[in-house]
């Protein structure tokens, strides 16, 4: 594609209509399946008073026994946030959020210091069991270290000893602040500064916990690191913060998965993830996101406003984002890579599924600064019900980024006739040697495909599962094996037989 053509990439805005009366009824029957993971665990909470002001920030910092630099940083972020406006440019609609009518700190009361998983609150264990991610099973069967985050405070971390042998630090953010303040101080906000955007500023001011991961020079992390997040207390905003640092030549594959219980009121989730990859380091970050999407009438559900960004700081570094997004009422999220070093690589593989009244505005940003930088974007949007699904992606090639290359493929799949798919690709190219390719398609799960499956004895529900999983194949193959299986199940649950 020529430079001239690049600048006039089509913005396709595609709403499709098709389907017979019967099809429509089947769609409605099947897409109305209930969220299976809606329940509340009754654990005593320690909660900050409602509202947001400097006092609350002092309270949070004090609760967490933070060093002065953290409090200072939080306060700066808060003061900056107060001057900011909530962004309205995403292609989503939701009621105004009353930031003063929310709790900003809630922690399960600790009974005592935990030494092993057996000491974890049994109710908490039950919760994880319901999610099908029994920690012990995971530990035994998969060898995945699990840092289980419930609401805001980490309650169990496994495989620490094994990781410590390699000098790998994998712990809750709070622990990192206590035990490795110099690393936190050096890297926090270095990729996503608190000035970055409204939600990042809010997160920086009030974040309660999250994960911290540090891979020393030359170390290849021997296992996949995994964190399960879960919102539990009513009306508690969840402000996670994740920081991953891979030193020169290090490698890590990091998994993040989420589900949240049913709520009537909308809940805000504004997380920040920062990744730093030094020379020759590689970080693979995979997410399966399944926050509560709201009920079939569009009531309730999580607002998921997340800032995820990685920087390939030095030559030959590589950062790869893979996400499967099936949850949340509203999603606003653009995992990005800054390709600063020469020969660095950024990848983004995404499946975003919306059903009922869900809205998603998601995509990526690839910022090419170094020479011979390469990026790949594969985005698969799936819309069902009355949902709206937008891809928004930016590819920027800086003045000095000689021979930058990007390949983008943005596909949309429609199920039913009341949903919408939208594509907003942005290109900013300031170097003539750049080679950029963009492909976009919109298709629908056709009645012909479903009938063909039916005629071979496959039910409509299963047919949709097969067709959709086939469509997502390019992304699923980027996921670690056990995650890929989970992702396929999630798609099946989320779609339970929507028909086209």
């Amino acid at each position: 594609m020529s430079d001239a053509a690049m600048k006039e990439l089509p913005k396709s805005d595609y709403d499709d209509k098709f389907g017979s009366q019967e099809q429509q009824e089947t769609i409605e029957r099947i897409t109305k399946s209930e969220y299976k993971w809606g329940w509340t665990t009754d654990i005593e909470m320690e909660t900050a008073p409602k509202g947001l002001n400097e006092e609350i920030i002092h309270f949070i910092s004090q609760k967490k026994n933070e060093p002065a630099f953290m409090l200072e940083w939080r306060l700066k972020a808060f003061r900056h946030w107060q001057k900011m406006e909530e962004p309205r440019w995403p292609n989503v609609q939701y009621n105004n959020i009353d930031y003063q009518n929310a709790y900003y700190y809630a922690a399960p009361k600790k009974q005592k210091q935990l030494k092993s998983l057996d000491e974890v609150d049994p109710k908490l264990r039950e919760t994880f069991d319901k999610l099908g991610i029994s920690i012990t099973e995971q530990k035994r069967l998969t060898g995945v270290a699990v840092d289980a985050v419930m609401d805001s405070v980490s309650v169990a971390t496994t495989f620490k000893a094994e990781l410590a042998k390699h000098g790998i630090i994998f712990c809750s953010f709070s622990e990192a602040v206590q035990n490795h303040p110099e690393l936190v101080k050096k890297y926090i906000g270095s990729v996503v500064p608190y000035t970055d955007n409204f939600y990042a500023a809010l997160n920086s001011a009030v974040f309660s916990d999250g994960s911290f991961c540090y891979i020393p020079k030359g170390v290849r992390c021997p296992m996949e690191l995994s964190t399960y997040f879960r919102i539990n207390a009513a009306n508690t905003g969840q402000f996670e913060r994740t920081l991953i640092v891979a030193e020169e030549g290090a490698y890590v594959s990091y998994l993040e998965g989420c589900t949240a219980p049913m709520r009537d009121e909308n809940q805000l989730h504004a997380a920040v993830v920062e990744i730093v990859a030094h020379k020759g380091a590689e970080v693979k970050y995979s997410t399966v996101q399944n926050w509560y999407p709201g009920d079939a009438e569009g009531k309730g559900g999580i607002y998921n406003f997340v800032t995820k960004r990685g920087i390939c700081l030095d030559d030959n570094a590589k950062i790869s984002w893979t996400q499967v997004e099936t949850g949340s009422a509203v999603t606003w999220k653009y995992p990005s890579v800054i390709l600063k070093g020469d020969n660095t690589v950024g990848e983004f593989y995404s499946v975003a599924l919306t059903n009922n009244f869900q809205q998603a505005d998601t995509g990526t940003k690839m910022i090419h600064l170094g020479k011979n930088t390469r990026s790949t974007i594969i985005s698969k949007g799936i819309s069902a019900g009355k949902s709206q699904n937008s891809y928004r992606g930016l590819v920027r090639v800086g003045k000095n980024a000689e021979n930058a290359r990007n390949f983008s493929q943005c596909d949309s799949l429609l199920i039913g006739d009341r949903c919408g798919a939208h594509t907003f690709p942005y290109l900013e190219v300031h170097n003539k040697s750049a080679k950029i390719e963009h492909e976009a398609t919109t298709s629908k799960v056709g009645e012909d495909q479903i009938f063909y499956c039916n005629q071979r004895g496959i039910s409509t529900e299963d047919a949709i599962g097969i067709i959709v999983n086939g469509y997502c194949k390019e992304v699923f193959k980027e996921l670690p094996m056990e995650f890929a299986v989970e992702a396929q199940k999630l798609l099946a649950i989320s779609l339970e037989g929507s028909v086209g």
Partner: protein
Amino acid sequence: MLEIKNLEASIEGNKILRGIDLKVNAGEVHAIMGPNGSGKSTLANVLAGREEYEIDGGEVLYNGDDLLDMSPEDRARAGVFMAFQYPVEIPGVTNAHFLKTALNEIREARGEEKLDAVEFLALVKERMKLVELDQKLLNRSVNEGFSGGEKKRNEIFQMAVLEPKLTIMDETDSGLDIDALRIVSNGVNKLKNPNSATLVITHYQRLLNYIVPDFVHVLVNGRIVESGGKELALKLEEHGYDWVKEANNVAA
């Protein structure tokens, strides 16, 4: 096996089938011939259970059961197989995965054990030979990038694996060159057995040189106007469809 009584059907308000009567017994091959627009494909699709078609009257008994009351997947599980005129592409889904899912659904309905990957592979390797299909096609997406001939052979290959009782071949000969026609027909002939029946829907006689029917029916304007043995097909080849229309007072 199959008994169609006074079947009437329409699509989007247009009457297509105007009273079809047909009886097919196990072990028989019936050919349905007719000019374009006579309702051949409609008949095939109504039997397979395509929803766009409205049933306006009549009934269809399949081994004594009300076929029209069954969902398309239940018909398939009960042994009704349609070889599609235009086989559908399903990107990203391998032929093997698709067929294994289908086979195990059907086996389950028959009360048989599901096949595991090894057993399945052994079965498909053997059946692929029937239609001279390359094994590489197993790992390609369903019908995606297949040539016209490969698509049709893939249909017959699926039939060979699923072992239906009643096969409806919807213009399987369309778009096939003579070699592919021979391969497809050989496959069908080898699969012929006393417990299954085949309904061959075609516009042209040439397919019937290879798959020799026991009965030939001529469909004109939604009705069967002539029935006979295989010689009827030859007569049509020689004289075209006009004489049947005239003989039956149907406007051309």
